[in-house]
């Protein structure tokens, strides 16, 4: 298998103001599976088409936002290799003991120049009711709500985007799939570690450690429309869409969870290969890059974060 090192965006831990409201949103509306509630009150969720035990962790807190984003690496040895490379780059590397999240092996953690906490781990238990693997049906039980297959990526807001882009490409072996360049420099980076158009993206913002959205994959453009119907029917706070991004080509709709954290459900997007050239958007065409149909910048989408 050619894919080595960091495999994919594996989990995101989000803070919510009210766990009961959050579970209605993430389980009944988006359609994630409820895996487990930990002794410390954190709740673990996963998309129905994910093999690993969990991918979304919710923690009740007095301010919403993101605690950390975790990436899975291929082998245990990779944790040592990356820990050394991250230290060489000049960031402090911490350790999280195995079992701190149920079913997850030891993790390494570090804070990147945008202020976000990033973690790497090699081991997570398989889901008890994960996707079928022998003569596999499409799913075990009818998918619910928006029928999200998996947690896919996050967009994070913070300062020092060129440095973050360099860190992910030089130290974590990601590729810069797409970039936004202005006369003053790079203001956004869309980074992948596999065939997806992005596993994580960053946009320049003066406050550090801000969360823009967590995104979940749907099967089709029709499913994006179905998600829009659910958003209307259940008075979910809609941000924008259904529409399409020029950047990554995703067909998308954005909305907020009951605590104000933004979510995306999307379909499509191109296949990235390691020999793909970087796609570049310039400031004068950024409206089209972000919302391909509307072609205009949207103050809420650009400025509202948790």
């Amino acid at each position, binding site marked *: 298998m050619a894919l080595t090192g960091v495999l994919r965006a594996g989990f995101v831990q989000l803070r919510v*103001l*009210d766990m009961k409201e959050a579970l209605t949103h993430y389980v009944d509306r988006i359609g994630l599976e409820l895996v487990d509630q930990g002794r410390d009150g954190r709740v673990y969720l996963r998309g129905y088409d994910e093999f690993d035990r969990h991918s979304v962790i919710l923690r009740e807190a*007095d*301010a*919403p*936002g993101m605690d950390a984003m975790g990436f899975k690496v291929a082998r245990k040895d990779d944790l040592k290799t990356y820990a050394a490379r991250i230290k060489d780059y000049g960031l402090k590397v911490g350790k999280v003991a195995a079992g701190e999240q149920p079913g997850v092996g030891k993790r390494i953690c570090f804070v990147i120049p945008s202020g976000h906490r990033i973690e790497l781990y090699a081991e997570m238990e398989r889901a008890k009711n994960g996707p079928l693997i022998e003569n596999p049906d499409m799913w075990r039980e009818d998918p619910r709500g928006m029928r999200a297959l998996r947690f896919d990526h996050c967009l994070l807001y913070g300062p020092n985007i060129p440095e973050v882009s360099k860190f992910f490409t030089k130290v974590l072996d990601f590729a810069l799939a797409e970039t936004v360049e202005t006369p003053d420099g790079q203001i956004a980076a869309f980074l992948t570690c596999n065939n997806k158009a992005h596993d994580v993206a960053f946009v320049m913002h003066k*406050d550090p450690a801000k969360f823009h959205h967590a995104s979940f994959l749907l099967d089709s453009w029709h499913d994006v429309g179905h998600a829009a119907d659910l958003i209307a029917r259940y008075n979910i*706070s809609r941000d924008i869409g259904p529409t399409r991004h020029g950047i990554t080509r995703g067909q998308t709709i954005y909305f*907020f*969870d*009951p*605590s*104000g*954290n*933004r979510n995306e459900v999307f379909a499509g997007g191109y296949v990235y290969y390691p020999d793909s050239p970087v796609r570049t958007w310039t400031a004068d065409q950024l409206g089209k890059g972000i919302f391909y149909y509307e072609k205009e910048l949207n*103050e*809420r989408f650009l*400025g*509202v*974060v*948790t």
Partner: protein
Amino acid sequence: MSADQRDGFPGPPMFEIVIAGHGLRCPAEGRVLLEMERQGKKFLPVGCRGGGCGICRVEVLRGRYRTLKMSRLHVSVEEQRRGFALACRLVPESDLELRPARRQAH
């Protein structure tokens, strides 16, 4: 049906909300920001509508109200005591006078 049309019919009491000189009718149990949007008015910026992003932060200058849970990053306990709130989580219990108070350090 707009909030105004409910006047004179059985239903929740209506309160007069004044935001920086603009008027808005809001039913008891309504949330100020959502009523503003429903009536097509734009006195305050609309963000997440869930008490998280802080864009619709206001200061209540006059009146009685209650608030639903709001991000402490945007309204601390002390600020809440002094009358600051997020309009998306603000439920009137009388006529209110509000001032937009979005944090500058956003």
